[in-house]
């Protein structure tokens, strides 16, 4: 059985102008020791689905699912108290902006020790020893001194390391990294990704990497789930996805990578992600898809089988017959 299992997850936000569906019928599985990347543009619901699973959405959100289990806990029926015992301990998350994600009023040492004290009930001395150990593990030099530093006294990269140290403090079974490198510069990005991968190797935890950077996906992930406008539109292991994407959106995303460009002008995807008011009746990608026909614009496609990457498309690309023809 997989560590995290989500079936038909939907999230609706109550807004002043009515309901907005941010996540629409998403299935997701993560196994122990696996790296899953969730890819999509801004607003594709990739963060929201994971925040919903963690129970971190504001009260305006309504979460529904057929099934949502993590490590034997049913996250749909779990009590708030019970959830707090899992979240932060076995199920941890790091965020996009390390600078604003740490509390400016407390030292980073206090913030990491708080996790240790609340979840593991360690003594003051044991907390300190473990905090030093964690800082060493995530590559923060001079941990003893850094523990008494405030977030504003450190760089963004160092703060993200602190966030990671805090997240892995209780040896979680699953770590969700929500665009962990977006706010950092490129050299630091690579270091943070290496760190996350090596932590996965050492601790054997599952890792969900939420990103919009295909480069990060190619480097780090093992399995990729592509989301568009709240729906999961394709899922494949990383190599086949890059070699033969089945959904036109995935293909268009890959074509737009500068590394893969063959022409002088970089191909782009025309149009925008549909918002609250211009949601198409049929396939959500149909207004921007160069293959779309009248059927695509009228009916919602169901996901294809696993051999076609669960692609939500009537006419998936790179099928054997297309290659043959």
């Amino acid at each position, binding site marked *: 059985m997989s560590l995290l299992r989500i079936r038909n997850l939907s999230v609706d936000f109550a807004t002043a102008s009515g309901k907005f569906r941010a996540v629409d019928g998403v299935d997701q599985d993560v196994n122990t020791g696996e790296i899953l990347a969730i890819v999509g543009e801004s607003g594709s619901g990739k963060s929201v689905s994971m925040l919903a699973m*963690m129970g*971190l959405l504001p009260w305006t959100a309504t979460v529904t699912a057929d099934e949502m289990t993590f490590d034997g806990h049913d996250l749909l029926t779990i009590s708030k108290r019970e*959830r*707090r*015992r*899992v*979240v*932060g*301990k076995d199920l*941890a*998350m790091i*965020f996009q*902006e390390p600078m*604003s*994600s*740490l*509390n*400016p*009023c*407390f030292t980073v040492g206090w913030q990491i020790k*708080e*996790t240790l004290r*609340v*979840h593991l009930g360690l003594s003051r001395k044991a907390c300190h020893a473990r905090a030093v150990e964690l800082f060493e593990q995530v590559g923060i030099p001079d941990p003893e001194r850094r523990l008494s530093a*405030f977030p*504003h006294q450190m760089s963004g990269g160092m703060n993200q390391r602190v*966030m990671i140290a*805090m997240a892995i403090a209780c040896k979680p079974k699953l770590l969700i990294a929500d665009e962990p490198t977006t706010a950092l510069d490129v050299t630091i990005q690579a270091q943070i990704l290496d760190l996350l991968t090596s932590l996965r190797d050492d601790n054997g935890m599952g890792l969900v990497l939420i990103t919009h950077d295909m480069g990060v996906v190619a480097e780090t992930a093992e399995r990729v789930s592509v989301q568009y406008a709240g729906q999961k539109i394709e899922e494949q292991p990383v190599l086949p996805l890059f070699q033969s994407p089945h959904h036109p959106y995935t293909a268009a995303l890959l074509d737009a990578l500068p590394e893969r460009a063959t022409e002088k002008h970089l191909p782009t995807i025309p149009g925008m992600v549909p918002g609250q008011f211009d949601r198409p009746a049929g396939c959500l990608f149909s207004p921007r898809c160069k293959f779309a026909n009248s059927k695509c614009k009228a009916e919602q496609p169901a996901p294809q089988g696993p051999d076609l990457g669960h692609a939500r498309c009537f006419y998936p690309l790179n099928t054997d017959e297309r290659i043959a023809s």
Partner: protein
Amino acid sequence: MLNYVLSRLLTFVPTFLGVTLISFAFIRVLPGDPIIVMAGERGVSQERYDQLAAQFGFDRPMYVQFWDYFTGVLQGDLGNSFVTKKPVWDEFFTLFPATLELSLCAMILAIILGLPAGVIAAVNRGKFFDRALMSTALVGYSMPIFWWALLLIIVFSGNLGWTPVSGRIDLLYYFPDPTGFMLIDSLASGQKGAFWSAIRHLILPTIVLGTIPLAVIARQTRSAMLEVLGEDYVRTARAKGMSPGRINSIHALRNALIPVITVIGLSVGTLLAGAILTETIFSWPGIGKWMVDSIFRRDYPVVQGGLLLIAVMVMIVNLTVDMLYGLINPKIRKR
């Protein structure tokens, strides 16, 4: 931190100069003449008037008078009251403890009730408690203070007879007052019932004086908390599995305190200077009442000296507030 304190102290210099000048000028631009006021209805002969004017130094040019006053201030001499002939300095520090005691009690009341109320309102945003509290706060903020005081006196002193109407302590009690704080002195005197009497006298003035700061603090705490609760680090705390109580009272409140401390500091300033109405209504022998009386008597040294001392007190409070910022949020210390 020491540099920070010194640089803040340096900004006192121009403020101090300004306040000295304004307090000197303020009372002199008011119509009226202290000699005429002192003479009362009998009037005064021109000969005697000139003699008194020469005695007080009014015959000399204004800038000379100011220079005399200013050099006196620098030497710690604020002059003597025209009316009581006692040094302004002594009078101020005889009366100031009464005002300070009342202001502190009012402030403590406002903080003890206002902070938690604001936090609870923010956490229960839009619900019944929030709405009820915020409308009550608005009423408290907009209510005329004298009317509120009279209302309380009628109900609690008049109808119910629970609290005394005025003064700091029952006339039964007499004891030395080394500190000037009635609560401390009455306790130190060891007289039976004295402390209780002092408390009973404090209750109504404290409520009246504390009402506006209470409303301001509650509203400010609520809005600061609402802002902070939307911050990323609050989400991080929740992702760490911390309980809502812990998140609200530790992670969020500490950040929300910065703007709250600002209004607390401003309120302390206005309380020290502005307890006039409350002190007058409750015959509280503090500096507010003293200043009002002195303005009516055109007692130049008292008004200019009193204003200056009040301003210095407010400046000290502001400095303390600035220090507190640094203590609460280390990020500010750096700037």
